[in-house]
């Protein structure tokens, strides 16, 4: 069975990375289980909730709907790659300032969706923010706080 494995190389949070795959693994499982990136959450496994959002070549992707084999040569970003205790990403900082964190479970996905938006559109309108964040569900209903956070991070609001 060992022969069935193949190696996939890609960029993970800015660093080169390679994993051995059988071929039937979902991206979320490789990220969580093989690469220990626990910020990626599974909320439904069907592409409905958006909690497993990661960035692939800077675009938001549901990692429960992407096969790990598809990431060959691409760049994958998770929340672990955008900030740490010492240097929070401006969106992470804005989350803390505006009180956007409630249960926190959806936060990594929302932060990535917001980062992707701001990277391509540094001064988004409220409508653009809502459209960009719409794939991610938040049952605590922090949506207004998320919107405020993106506005703060974009410098539109302080």
């Amino acid at each position, binding site marked *: 069975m060992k022969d069935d494995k193949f190696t996939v190389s890609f960029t993970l949070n800015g660093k080169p990375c390679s994993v051995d795959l059988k071929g039937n693994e979902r991206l979320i499982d490789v990220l969580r289980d093989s690469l220990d990136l626990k910020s990626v959450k599974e909320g439904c496994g069907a592409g409905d909730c958006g909690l497993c959002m990661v960035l692939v070549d800077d675009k938001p992707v549901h990692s429960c709907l992407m096969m790990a084999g598809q990431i060959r040569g691409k760049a994958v970003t998770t929340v672990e790659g955008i900030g740490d205790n010492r240097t*929070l990403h401006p969106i992470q900082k804005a989350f*803390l300032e505006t009180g956007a964190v409630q249960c926190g*479970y959806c936060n990594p996905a929302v932060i990535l969706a917001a980062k992707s938006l701001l990277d391509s559109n540094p001064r988004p309108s409220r409508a653009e923010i809502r459209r960009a964040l719409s794939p991610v569900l938040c049952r605590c209903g922090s949506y207004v706080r998320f919107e405020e956070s993106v506005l703060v991070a974009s410098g539109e609001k302080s």
Partner: protein
Amino acid sequence: MESVQIQQASKKDFDVVGKKVVRAGAVLAVLGKPSYTADIATGDLVYVKAVRSSCVHATIESIDTSRAKLLPGVLAILTSKDIPGVNDAGSILSDRPLLAEKVVRHYGEAVAIVVAETHQAAEEAAMLMDIAYTPLPSVTNPNDALKPDAPLVQERSNLVKHMKIRKGDVERGFSQSDLVVENTFKTEFVDGLPLETEAAYSYLEPSGRIACVCSMQNPFDVYGKVVKILGFEKAKLRMIQATTGGGFGPKSDETPIDVAAYACLATLKTGKPALAQFTRDEAMIIQCKRHPFIIKNRTGVTNDGRLLAWQSELIADTGAYVSKGHLVLGRAVFHCTGPYEVPNVKADGYCVLTNNTIAGSTRGFGSPQVHFAAEVQMDLIAERLEMDPVVFRAKNILRPGTRTLTNQRIEDPGLDMCFRKAVALSDWYHKRKQYEQHNKGTSRLKKGIGIALLYHGNTLGPESGDFATVHIAITPDGKALVETGLTDFGTGGMTSLLMVAAEVLGLPYEDVRMSRPDTGRVSDSGPTVASRVTVIGGRATFEAAEIIKNRLSRVAAERLACSESSLIFRAGNVYSNDKPERRITFRDLVVEAADRNVELKSVGYYLAPTTNWDEETGQGSPYNQYTFGAVVADVEVDTETGFIRVGQLTPVYDAGKVINPLGLLAVCEGGSIMGTGYGIMEKIVTSEGVIMNPNLHTYWIPTILDCPEIINSSTVESAGQIGIFGAKSIGEIPIVLPAAAIANAISWATGVKIREIPMTPDKILAAIMNVK
């Protein structure tokens, strides 16, 4: 006496309380650090999967495990016979087995569990289980369940509880009324739907004790049940709350007990660490739902708009096991007239067993259903009286000196304050005129504005012993560690407790930390339900912090040569009010106290006054204090599609003294959005007891695009009698009113009568066609 002390305390200027702070645990959340149950499950894990009933009501004839056992990776299959202790997983009443014995009573009830080396093997083995059932007659309509010849769901009457209110003489009230209005309202099963599904991770400690990490609201409730299921002595189990990705009620009821027991049984059987986590469909089938209610309201009024009589009949479907159904019914009945003074009230509430999915705690706990029915009823009456709904409500609201339906005297002006502020902020009278003009000029997009009011009895009241325990320890670095079995699952309650501790000890907020709730470290703190952490837990935190402050004061007074009463604890310093130059840092004071062997650990305990009411008449004072609120909804109705756009919500709450303003804002906005979903989107669809939409593509919860464009949330502060510094409950409450406010706005805009939620486009469109 205590409340006097607290009231006085509320008059001083606060250093931490009422200020904006970063929520406890928020940095971990934004960094995506592993802290939820499945994130921290490590080691040579085994996985547990339940085998669930495909029948709604049936006897179990046989369970054949032979095919499942043969699957590679399967380690064990357990049925009710393999439970070492007691097969009882009911969160309050012992009516619900962990694994069904002879009978299954609802779709998806667990019959066995499979333990396997991989998640896939456990799932596949569960599908290879051969269970033979003989169907039994079932009942899935609560009205049918109350009939004398109805099939019995359990070996008891299907009627679990009959709650009564008898105030004045309702018949005389009706006969004196100029107008009597009667309507029947209906609400549906909905799912609280925390986005993290139920999960538990257990492992053997070197001592032989099992530790179980679980996503839950009530570690002590789960611990108490699981220890009995395992047949353990108390010391052989320890229950720890992991960071919990949403609670909303379901995680205070049955399902956390299930996953914790599954994992612990697997660890006991295999000696290995175990992970049990629900899939989304499993969670949506099994976790306790919000009770569907059928509510008949009959109301008598005078021509000038005074309420004279109110009669309610409430039927709540609690599904196959009681869970918290009897208590949900109680809260519903105690609020069934809405926040109005009515001299004559008769109410009869029935909690009924059926073979439907179990209903239990869900944010609001019976209050959203009855407030929907009462507040829509109020608008339907106002319309008949040709009176503005605001004017009509103003004649009847609970003001100081009035009495509730239980004859409890209200001393608090909170409702009037909320009502006035919501009317002003929403620009009510101007908007009514403006939208009336707009609607005359358009046939398709109609605009409406509606209002609804609430009162919400605080904390447990009649539901059980309303106590909390909080431990505080001062560490040698001069910081405080707050430990309790009360939990946070997104509510912000723990942040409030840290703020109270910081306030009393005069420490910067950053110097107060919390630990994970752990039954092995703290004493029973009561359940985290009924929006009670800040209000009740805050009192226990205050007690614990005062004990330490008093001990430190003795040391400081000696050291600074001043009286204890002159000491001020503030911003990490302790000084004499008379001679402020005499000061010592909190940290140095702690070092000195430690040198003198002063105990710097304390336990604070608070028990709320017992509430009293009469079982037969429902008369008395079931709650110690009430939160009040008003919500105005601005909506646009597309009369060609039936689609509702909620443009603005204006929620105003009287949360008493606001402890954590940023947390309160998030809860008010979030509850408003969840309440909007309850009003216009959400419904668990069942067919003869089978759940048809256990997934997020056919059961819709609000996305950011469904969120009202503006939520203009605000508060008024009318101090509560028992809450810390005059605080009142808020956590659950913002979900209660949006449905009613939106319904009233739609009715006013279009002329349709709404008596059922959710107000989905198909229903709105059909109603509009009827009006035409």
